[in-house]
């Protein structure tokens, strides 16, 4: 199968799973934004999703997207390192037009992966997982309070958001290049759209994390203020 055996095929897999994850992050950010307006509404979103069949199916597809993207990242990185040869350059310079993020996608991805593990442990393992296994289920607000009552969580989350921002600023246009939907005109357009998309989505996440930390860690209630 060319998707696994050819270099272009492997990049198509990275591209399609990456675009899917960007789409997921966009929905995730919008759902989080609900919590900044009203915790009651957020609770309703959590209940609506819960562990219904459609939420479980969605989770399974999403998990597959993450796993394939991550496994391929490891395979591609190993192949690319060996293609470079045993001897490394003594002096290397990054040309001006080459983004820093583009040459550090794997490292950025590792940071995102660490953040993802922490995030799943704080929320998914306390909300959807016990609903499946029949344990004690935390509500949306309770889970938020448990996580964001500790100020360090906010700092770790902001670091995670920065890593995702860098990852997407390259990943977005790169995904379109890999599936061949690009040319001299569109390359700058995709870069511009990707930059704004990443910035808006990550700002939404950051605003949520900061507002929830203000409320749960410092008692300064700004939920619903906007």
């Amino acid at each position, binding site marked *: 199968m*060319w998707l696994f*055996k*050819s*270099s*272009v*095929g*492997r*990049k*198509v897999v990275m591209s399609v799973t990456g675009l899917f994850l960007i789409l997921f992050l966009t929905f995730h950010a919008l759902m989080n934004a609900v919590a900044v307006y009203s915790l009651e509404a957020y609770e309703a979103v959590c209940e609506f999703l819960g562990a219904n069949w459609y939420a479980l199916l969605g989770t399974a597809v999403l998990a597959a997207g993450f796993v394939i993207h991550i496994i391929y990242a490891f395979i*591609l990185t190993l*192949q*690319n390192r*060996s*293609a*470079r*040869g*045993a*001897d*490394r*350059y*003594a*002096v*290397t*310079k*990054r*040309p*001006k*037009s*080459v*983004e820093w993020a*583009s*040459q550090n*996608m794997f490292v950025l991805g590792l940071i995102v992966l660490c953040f993802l593990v922490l995030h799943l442990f704080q929320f998914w393992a306390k909300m959807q997982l016990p609903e499946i296994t029949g344990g004690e289920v935390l509500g949306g607000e309770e889970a938020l309070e448990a996580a964001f009552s500790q100020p360090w969580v906010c700092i770790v989350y902001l670091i995670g958001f920065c890593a995702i921002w860098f990852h997407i600023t*390259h990943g977005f*246009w*790169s995904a*379109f*290049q*890999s*599936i*061949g*939907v*690009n*040319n*001299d005109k569109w*390359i700058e357009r995709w870069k511009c759209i990707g930059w704004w998309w990443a910035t808006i989505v990550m700002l939404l996440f950051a605003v949520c994390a900061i507002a929830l930390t203000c409320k749960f860690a410092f008692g300064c209630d700004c939920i619903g203020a906007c």
Partner: protein
Amino acid sequence: MENSISVKLKVWRQANPQAKGEFVTYELQDIPTDTSFLETLDILNEQLVERGEEPIAFDHDCREGICGMCSLYINGHPHGPATGATTCQLYMRRFKDGETITVEPWRSAAFPVIKDLMVDRNAFDKIQQAGGYVSFNTGGAQDANAIPISKVAADEAMDSASCIGCGACVAACKNGSAMLFVSAKVSQFALLPQGKAEAKKRVKAMLQKMDELGFGNCTNTGACAAECPKNIKLSNIARLNREYISAKCSD
């Protein structure tokens, strides 16, 4: 008005493909700034021969930027710090007096070092042999305008065809990927009616050969296009991806 500079050349020396290489630093006095980089290496080699030492092996041929023979990774850039130019078009006025210039061979698993700064770029020939040609007899010249070709397509095909196959794209790529080279060779035919007949067969064969030879996967950093002495554009890689995906989907 001619100025002269003195430089230190830190050059990669490696006796043969199996030997362990190392950097050796040579001092050169009073090199006129109008000397080309390859002439500077010639001057150094003359001095080495006079001293009874082994001269430095490096690739060169036309010395006017069209043959694709010269290489060299100079101070972190393939073909040196000048953009849109090959090493033979690089002059010593690009460097400062007293500067140490690091000169390395292309480093890629698919381009093994033969000796010193010379690498084996036969892999590119093998990719070309896999499909980088039009295989049927085109006969006599067509009447003008019998097959209209847009100016845009003609220009793009011509730009893609300006690739000299020097391998700077592979040398610049952190993944040792040959995608810019292959995409230029695929594009120059894919854009023109003569190449369309075999387009699907060609792109599949060339890409398969590229993967077989141990080149890396493209991660769209764009270092290849930034360092290319012929300014081959990154959009060629998008076209290669498009051609390959549509060829595979129509199988």
